[in-house]
């Protein structure tokens, strides 16, 4: 019995991810010893920050059995609207108001998703596609497509706040790790606790496992689904604000096109498209793998123009592996 248990552990989804991450790192390190400097984890954190936050939102939705493709659009609206308001002088130079307006946007569109999915019972893919186009359409219609860079001074201050800075002795380049890194850390911890130790959290897993049974057992399914999309919207807008702070600008298209990466990070990390499965740790590893690959293709000598394709190939393998893994041990058909 013990041998089967440890065998199962070592071939589990999580461990396979770890192996792949290690393997990839080894290959890169061999080609580019510079990979092994402390700059790498700092870069990874910076690059993966947004993906991870979005992945947390996506994970929540996927656990309930749905899928969300509206987060890039919601993010864009959440970052752009307060920027425009600030640019036109409607918002004072106060970071807090900015954040509140952004959260409001996230709330509204999260609400829209919630209504569509839990009250109108529209399949989540279609509902979030609709929300996505409503959000981006609204944005372009109401505000045009300028890139904006003026933001509250508070933000500039936060931008300069760094947790730790590593300066590479050889090149003299410095790699700052922003203090905002705490946000995903706190989010992850809080979410992990909620998912594991509250009835609401268990309710999400129950809904993903058997929706009708969840109703029969007494879970407030509608309310839970609704809340999921609202929370997802709020986290998305928070992430958008972080983007503005760190990237120093806002545009209407900055975050678009990321759906696949984030969904892949979740799937590779153990979330099932049909719901009921997913852990924070898994999603973290999934994000790590994807960020790792995305940012080190240069080190592997792959030309920029081929990087989209390369990432796609890695994603394909990830998805294949996870699906084969999940299919193992189940019936034949």
């Amino acid at each position, binding site marked *: 019995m013990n041998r089967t248990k440890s065998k199962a552990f070592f071939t589990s989804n999580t461990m396979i991810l770890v192996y792949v991450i290690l393997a990839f790192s080894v290959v890169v390190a061999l080609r580019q010893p510079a990979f092994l400097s402390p700059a790498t984890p700092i870069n990874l954190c910076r690059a993966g920050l947004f993906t991870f936050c979005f992945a947390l939102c996506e994970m929540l939705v996927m656990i309930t059995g749905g899928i969300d493709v509206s987060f890039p659009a919601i993010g864009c609206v959440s970052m752009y609207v307060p920027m425009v308001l600030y640019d036109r002088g409607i918002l004072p130079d106060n970071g807090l108001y900015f954040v509140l307006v952004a959260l409001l946007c996230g709330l509204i569109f999260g609400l829209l998703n919630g209504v*569509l999915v839990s009250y109108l*019972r529209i399949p989540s893919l279609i509902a979030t*596609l609709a929300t996505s*186009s409503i959000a981006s*359409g609204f944005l372009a*219609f109401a505000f045009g497509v300028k890139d904006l860079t003026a933001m509250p001074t508070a933000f500039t201050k936060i931008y300069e706040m760094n947790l730790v800075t590593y300066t590479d002795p050889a090149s003299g380049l410095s790699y700052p790790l922003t203090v905002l890194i705490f946000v995903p850390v706190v989010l992850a911890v809080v979410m992990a606790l909620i998912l594991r130790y509250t009835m609401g959290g268990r309710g999400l897993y129950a809904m993903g496992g058997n929706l009708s049974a969840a109703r029969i057992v007494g879970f407030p399914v509608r309310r839970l689904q609704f809340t999921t999309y609202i929370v997802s919207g709020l986290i998305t807008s928070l992430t958008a604000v972080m983007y503005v702070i760190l990237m120093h600008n806002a545009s209407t298209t900055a975050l678009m096109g990321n759906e696949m990466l984030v969904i892949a990070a979740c*799937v590779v990390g153990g979330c099932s498209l049909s719901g009921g499965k997913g852990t924070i740790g898994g999603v973290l590893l999934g994000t790590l793998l994807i960020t790792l690959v995305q940012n080190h293709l240069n080190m592997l000598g792959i030309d920029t*123009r081929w990087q989209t394709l390369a990432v*796609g190939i890695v994603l394909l393998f990830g998805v294949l592996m996870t699906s084969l893994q999940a299919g193992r041990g189940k019936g034949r*058909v």
Partner: protein
Amino acid sequence: MKNPLARNKQVGTLIALMALVCVLMLIFCPGSYFTAKNAKSMLFQFPEYGILAFGMMLCMIAGGIDLSLVGIMNLSGLTAALILLALIPEGTEASAEFTAVALIVSSVAALLVGALCGLFNGFLIGYFGIPAMLVTLCSLQLFTGLVYGITGGPAVTGMCDAFKEIANGTIAGTFVPYVLPIFVIVLLVVAFILHKTKLGREIYYLGTNRKASVFSGINTLKTSMLTYMTSGILGGVSGILITSHLNAAKSSNGTSYTLLTILIVVLGGVHPDGGKGDVVGVTLSVLLMQMISNAFTLLHISQDVKNFANGALLILVLVCVMLIRKVEEKKKAQQ
């Protein structure tokens, strides 16, 4: 073999909506909407995404979905462009016969590429049983990545005039654009496949119950691959059309078509779970979308708002369908 009542309801709703659009346009700009010029412009536009919608329809009836269609479209369009440019380099002239041959060769190549992409999708979905959503999201990335890698970023342009004629020209002497008969042919072929062939029946079976299909001896792998191959070919046709239309092949062509085709297809009566839907509903839906799009243009509403409106329209229609169903259930219960 289908529930005639349900089908009629969908068709009825669509026709009612089309009538509504006409009425509204009569009120707001009768002068420009009901002109030959506007009609002609509509005829040019809808085949491009309408053909793509048929591809999406086939996959959804089979119980899946093809989110990579736009990627296939661009990859095929790129193939056609590159081959054409190889045969007739930019700025050179060629005889009519040679041009014709070049067009045919490049088009066939584009369709082949589309077919291969489709086979790729169909194999992963049918053999490994990976959800179609995931596979095609992934392959969208792959195909788009290929286009981006090959072009290096900027669009490929400079195709010969004859190529541009395909999507932008009309049949000699008439107002009928070339794309219209292409659309009609595609429509007839798809309808034929769905209703008159074994493959068509198997697509419906597969979308209704995959397990039962396997147990009934249906070769679900073959069905899956053929379905996605067909939608891939349709993506190839659209690719030729859009590349000809814009005279440019690039990775970002037609990105709004993904949502649009899903909207069209769902509006047209195809159920996301599979097993239901057919060409009549989808065609009417395509025409309706085109009518709305033109109405927006003439009312000077920007393209971006169209995006917004598409999303809103989808929700509106789904809500209506749901309300109608609820009313029906109430009626039944009261009897």
